[in-house]
């Protein structure tokens, strides 16, 4: 699925560290993701998967490394430094203004939906189109209606989020993220907070989006069937490092590492 014209990774983690207090959750982490790739991150809780998504959404910031030009510790997106900015030919930790500009191409869907409860469904999807991307109200509404139809919620446009089921709320959240035309979509355990019978609808929407768009996706999930169907690469994390990575077929049917085998056995036994 990577677009043939581009040979540059859309995301590059170059020896990225992330500490929470004394705990180092990511350890000199390196990986590249090509445009259009769908990568699923798996691993036990606390292995750093969600932290990777939160770093890309700039909800967390990398732990600075001295002399990033030589020593790394930098996230790159679309060939430009992302966690850092170039100033006088050197890399410096990015300031809020820089991050605000850069993160517009990244969208995120959260485990807890995080819809705005004071806005109706339609406005949840138009708000940032109008106020971040400066689209006209008509344009934003047209786009929102299209996306809400795509996620199967055309009839809920005038409802408030708490009048919807969890699965419906999550589909609105997906529409809200897509409305920003992201190049990169981060899916953070998007079905974990849902009742089991609501999971399928959400996954169906995401499968549809994976098939019909070329958005690069990073997925943290415990839905192994979904991971297998949608992703072209799976990365297994443990204690802040990549233990193993491979195609989903290979990693699910023939994992090489003991930690991967143990993890998959535990998850699939659920």
């Amino acid at each position: 699925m990577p677009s043939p014209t581009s040979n540059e990774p859309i995301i590059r983690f170059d020896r990225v560290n992330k500490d929470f207090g004394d705990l180092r959750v990511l350890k000199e982490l390196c990986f590249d993701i090509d445009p259009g790739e769908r990568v699923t991150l798996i691993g036990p809780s606390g292995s750093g998967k969600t932290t990777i998504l939160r770093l890309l959404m700039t909800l967390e910031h990398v732990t600075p490394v001295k002399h990033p030009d030589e020593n790394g510790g930098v996230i790159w997106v679309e060939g430009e430094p992302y966690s850092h900015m170039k100033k006088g030919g050197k890399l410096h930790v990015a300031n809020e203004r820089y991050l605000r500009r850069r993160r517009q191409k990244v969208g995120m869907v959260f485990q807890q939906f995080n819809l705005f409860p004071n806005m109706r469904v339609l406005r949840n999807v138009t708000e940032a189109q109008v106020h971040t991307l400066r689209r006209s109200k008509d344009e934003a509404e047209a786009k929102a209606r299209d996306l809400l139809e795509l996620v199967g919620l055309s009839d809920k446009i005038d409802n408030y989020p708490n009048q919807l089921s969890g699965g419906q709320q999550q589909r609105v959240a997906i529409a809200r993220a897509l409305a920003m035309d992201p190049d990169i979509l981060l899916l953070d355990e998007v079905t974990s907070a849902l009742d089991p019978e609501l999971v399928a609808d959400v996954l169906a929407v995401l499968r549809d989006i994976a098939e019909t768009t070329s958005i690069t996706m990073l997925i943290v999930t415990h839905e192994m069937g979904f991971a297998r169907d949608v992703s072209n690469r799976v990365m297994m994390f443990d204690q802040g490092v990549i233990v193993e990575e491979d195609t989903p077929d290979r990693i699910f049917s023939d994992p090489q590492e003991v930690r991967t085998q143990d993890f998959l056995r535990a998850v699939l036994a659920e």
Partner: protein
Amino acid sequence: MDGWSNERAAEMFPMVFEGFVVVLQVTAVSGVIAILLGLLVAISDQTAPFWLRRPVNWIMQFVRNTPLLVQVLFVWYATSLYINPEWTAFVVGSAVLGIHYASYTSESYRAGIEAIPKGQWEAATALSLPRHRVWLAIILPQMLRRSTAAVANWLIAMFKEVPTLFAIGVLEMLAMVDRYAGLNYTGYVEGYTIAGLLFLAASYPVAVATRRLEIRLAKSNF
């Protein structure tokens, strides 16, 4: 001193009622200050730079932890001595009362802001919404919903403390009773009874309405 007299009560009523109107006027002015200044303090507590937040917090702590009566007397004498002796007791008293209660309402607003789930801020960040928009469209509406009832209760409490301004000569009800009784050597009991009943008549319905509002907000979709 003689006993209760209905005639005297009737005779006093218009005067005390005049004081009651002053009480309402003070409440209106102080109420606006308490509502808006409290909001400003609560927002600046989240957005202003450290060097501004710190002293504002300090002042609010100080205001909350010293008696209103002392504040009223201090500011009244201090302003007339050092700033402008022309300022009336009504103006100074209303301002002090409003600022005093802003120190409480700001805490209710602050609690309303802090009760908003972290995910709301994160979603706003993920959508790159401009900061002013985050406040206007997401944080303030959710915060107001949570803190309106608490702020209304502070305003009722404030209303009942307007008689403190008697100390600096605001012509509220106690001053009116005092004036009548000073001339006639009697009427305290009738006057204070009327004042108490007027307070009750005004604050009870408001308290009931606040309670209703609380229930309605708890039930609403948003």
